[in-house]
């Protein structure tokens, strides 16, 4: 018995250690952001600087129009995430209602799309956006939302909707509900964990997307937060407290969202 209890203590210790190790990048990012600007960088190891300041967080807004970039990022996420939820859950729902053989065909198609490397689409998407007039507009950043952002999300919804018993769909249809109503009243409420999961994943994707603005934007007025961070890096390469403050701002939004949603997933997982 003593052996197994010391064993479980060892496991707990290992778990805590690993969790701490994975938090290190973010911890180092935050502590660097709290250093007073311009102070000589110390070469002693200490987690917290001797003087803590929030100055960097106010300084960074004056150097680049971070506020506008933040608004642009919020605009992109505000359109792209709801659109993703609608298109990916529609697709997942329709596939789950098809006869089995067609279901398989759609899944293979989705898997094939999933396997296309993004790099291979960069230059030709650029040409297509130019033809459509989306080049150098915010729509170039939102475009993937029209296809549910990723077939991965479609498959997540498909999985969730398939687990709903057929009889529930049938009885809704007998009550005179159309496809759209069945989707909204029955399928979506039951698949809430999936909806929240897809919303979170697509939020993280659009919020952090650096490649689309890099390739498809030219005007500074459309720049999003990741581009702002890059501009800041090019301006003052060695002002680490400032750079880390900007990095913390960009990370804070998805992090808070994740921490808010996390207990919900833990509950679902426990059942």
């Amino acid at each position, binding site marked *: 018995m003593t052996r197994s209890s010391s064993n479980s203590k060892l496991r707990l210790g290992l778990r805590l250690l690993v969790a701490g190790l994975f938090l290190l990048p973010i911890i180092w*990012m935050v502590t660097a952001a709290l250093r007073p600007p311009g102070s000589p960088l110390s070469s002693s190891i200490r987690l917290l600087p001797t003087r803590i300041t929030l100055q960097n967080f106010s300084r960074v807004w004056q150097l680049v129009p971070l506020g506008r970039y933040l608004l642009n990022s919020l605009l992109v996420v505000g359109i792209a995430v709801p659109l993703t939820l609608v298109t990916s859950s*529609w697709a997942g729902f329709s596939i789950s209602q098809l006869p089995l053989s067609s279901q398989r065909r759609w899944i293979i198609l989705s898997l094939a*799309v999933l396997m296309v490397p993004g790099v291979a689409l960069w230059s*030709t998407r650029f040409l297509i956006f130019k033809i459509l007039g989306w080049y150098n507009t915010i729509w170039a950043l939102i475009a993937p939302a029209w296809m549910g952002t990723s077939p991965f999300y479609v498959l997540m919804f498909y999985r969730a909707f398939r687990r709903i018993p057929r009889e529930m769909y049938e009885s809704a249809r007998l009550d005179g509900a159309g496809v759209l109503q069945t989707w909204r009243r029955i399928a979506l409420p039951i698949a809430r964990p999936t909806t929240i999961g897809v919303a979170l994943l697509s939020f993280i994707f659009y919020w952090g997307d650096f490649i689309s603005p890099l390739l498809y934007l030219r005007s500074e007025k459309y720049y999003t937060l990741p581009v702002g961070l890059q501009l800041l890096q090019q301006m003052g390469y060695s002002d680490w407290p400032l750079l880390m403050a900007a990095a913390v701002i960009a990370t804070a939004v998805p992090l808070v969202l994740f921490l808010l949603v996390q207990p919900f997933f833990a509950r679902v997982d426990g059942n």
Partner: protein
Amino acid sequence: MLLIPYLLGILLLVFIPAALSFTIAFFKYDALSPPVWAGELNFILTYTDELFNLSMQNSLSLVILPVPLRVLGAFLLARLMQRKGRLISWLRASIYIPSIIPSVAYALAWLWILNPLFGPLNLILRAIGLAAPNWFSDPLSAKLALILMSLWQIGEGFLVSLAALQDTPPELEDAARIDGAASWHIFWRITLPLLAPILLLLSFRDAILALQESFTAILLTTNGGPYYATFTLPLFVYEQSFDLLSFGTASAALWAIYALTGLIILVLYVIAAQWNIGTTDDTFII
């Protein structure tokens, strides 16, 4: 009917661009003047380009090499965090957190962490008397640094492994335990082989994704250097199409990427057929 946006979307954003990139490889095209037929010239130019071959090698060593490490790491961590409980759900969350950080912020954070003089990692290395590398300014340690960076972002593999572990019947392990098998033995002989197909699928998906995701990290930290030591295929394609406006040669390089992907899909298909993955409800995670 509700499938229309999805179908149109993949047509416009995936299939047409993919088809275009196949055909443009035969033309000289700069997006300004109309395309001119070029035959196989782009292929010859690209495949004899030293930089292209170097970027191919770097892609393999920088992106493909860490993949088994990432997947196995994610799986071992999932195994460690497999229990239920409030504390452990927060510990799990902390493993996922590095994957939430926007890629640019993540790259900047590592530029700071690996700063040769003042970065926290080198301070620690010096304090315990180890050699402190120059990280991003030395060809070999720059590669190491990029691999190190990628090892912290394994959230997706971690979640998929957790889900897969939860789907395996606990009776199998219990039976082995009653027979007196040691827990490490059970792990290597029963759990791991049982989940091997999923881990393989995960590895392939990870390889394809990593190729693209490493782009931002490389662009911000080393920009392909020093001496092209971290110059990978996405950087080659980016440079050809957006700096040199040479869409033809970029597309010729893409043929190589497609060939590589095609090979991966073929292997995937064989594996899937062998183990019946993707034919049951629960394995569509991947």
